[in-house]
């Protein structure tokens, strides 16, 4: 199959066409409030007081979002508290984004007439950049232009028996078409890691998967706490999941059956196409930003049902530059939040569709979204902040 996307100078393919203003802050916000089509991010992590590893992780997120194929051009400003660190200085961020081949402009209050001056200059630049971006037309491209990231959440047993298998079909379809597919949530492969390691493309990749689980499981044990009071989370247990192992074994269905090409860090870009495991954390404010920074041009939240009672509106996307889809296989969730859900696979439980048929329908939904159809959450202004996945203490 094929979709209609924006071909970038590095041959990556955008499903959207934004001008991005980063990092977060009043300059970015003011520019984006003034200029239609310009976007920024929301996050409290700016790097000040963070270790070198965590600062590099923040830089990887910012650079990665800038390089995301859904971004036509980027404005980087130098008014963030973290800019004094070498990892996070505005010039470094701008240079590495520009290395991907797109236009990057710098704003520096110290050189551009203070904050007000930088905002004025930013507005003028952003207007021209948005106008320039709008001249680009979507073109027909193959599935190798797709890069998708997924998480499953509020999982219940419908996730494991219908929702995730449909996503797994989608993943196999995208990988078979030459595209890239990312899955992760290391805690939630504990108990299923052997099954995943058997699918590793090389023994080294298998070793990395097992190692990621060992590190995470040792961290869990070191807390001295019963993992069952942490994860499965209360909504999982309410939905019928009885143990972390059961959650994990259901969760890995979303990764389909393709060979796993590698293990990536949070926000790390894959070097090749195919299926990758990302050693990340499940939080939805964290994981989707990481996928987008790794280059995902579409992201998907496969939703169970526990804990969503009464929520007729599922709030918007934290991923900023990648369109965000809600999928669910839970009939009650779908009935409650119909307006918010982009794809429903409860048909598999009801017996009217096989997981493959539902997966094919999901694939076509993703192709439509990649070609420009808005996701339900894209029809809202509301955007949630990014909780960057940082692992080291603050000082």
């Amino acid at each position, binding site marked *: 199959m094929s979709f209609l996307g924006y071909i970038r100078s590095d041959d990556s393919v955008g499903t959207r066409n934004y001008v991005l203003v980063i990092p977060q802050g009043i300059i970015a916000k003011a520019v984006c409030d003034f200029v239609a089509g310009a976007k920024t991010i929301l996050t409290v992590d700016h790097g000040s007081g963070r270790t070198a590893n965590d600062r590099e992780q923040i830089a990887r997120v910012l650079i990665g979002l800038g390089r995301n194929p859904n971004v036509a051009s980027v404005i980087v400003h130098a008014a963030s508290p973290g800019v004094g660190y070498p990892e996070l200085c505005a010039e470094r961020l701008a240079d590495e984004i520009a290395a991907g081949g797109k236009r990057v402009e710098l704003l520096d209050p110290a050189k551009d007439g203070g904050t007000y001056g930088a905002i004025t200059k930013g507005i003028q630049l952003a207007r021209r950049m948005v106008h320039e971006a709008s001249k680009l037309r979507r073109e027909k491209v193959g599935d190798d232009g797709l890069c998708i990231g997924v998480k499953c959440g509020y999982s219940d047993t419908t996730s494991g028996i219908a929702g995730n298998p449909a996503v797994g079909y989608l993943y196999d379809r995208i990988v078979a078409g030459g595209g890239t597919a990312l899955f992760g949530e290391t805690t939630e492969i504990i108990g299923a890691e052997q099954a995943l390691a058997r699918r590793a493309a090389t023994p080294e990749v298998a070793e990395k998967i097992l190692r990621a689980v060992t590190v995470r499981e040792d961290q869990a044990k070191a807390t001295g706490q019963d993992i069952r009071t942490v994860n499965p989370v209360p909504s999982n247990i309410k*939905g019928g999941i*009885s143990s972390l192992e059961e959650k994990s074994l259901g969760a890995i269905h979303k990764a389909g059956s393709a060979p796993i090409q590698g293990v990536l860090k949070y926000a790390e870009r894959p070097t090749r196409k195919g299926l990758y495991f990302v050693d990340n954390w499940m939080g939805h404010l964290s994981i989707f930003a990481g996928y987008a920074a790794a280059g995902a041009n579409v992201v998907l939240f496969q939703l169970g049902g526990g804990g969503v009672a009464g929520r007729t509106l599922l709030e918007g996307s934290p991923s900023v530059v990648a369109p965000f889809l809600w999928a669910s296989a839970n009939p009650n969730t779908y009935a409650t939040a119909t307006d918010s859900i982009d794809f429903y696979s409860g048909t598999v439980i009801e017996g009217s569709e096989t997981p493959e048929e539902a997966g094919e329908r999901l694939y076509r939904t993703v192709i439509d979204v990649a070609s420009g159809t808005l996701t339900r959450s894209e029809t809202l202004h509301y955007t949630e902040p990014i909780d960057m996945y940082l692992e080291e203490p603050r000082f």
Partner: protein
Amino acid sequence: MQPKRALIMHPDDNVATAVEEIAAGEEVAVPSAGNFLTLTATEAIPFGFKLALREIPQGEIIRKYGETIGLATTVIAKGAMVHIHNLEGTRARGDLERGSER
């Protein structure tokens, strides 16, 4: 009355997942190898929850998706609900780790 539906994910499983609300005493049909396995629910099994396909002795491995999802903490009767009250996960258990250090 039409039997209620539950699904098994793998032939090695000793539990099935209810895909509709099952009341105590109702008959349950589980598709298996082109046929149906039938049993009686000994208690109410809510949508999405598991029931035992046969008697499971205490300490026995509970299997779903053909893999271990935990151990039975008590003997579980055929047709009874299997959940956190009688199934114990064994992975990433910091509380057990602490116990073994004592």
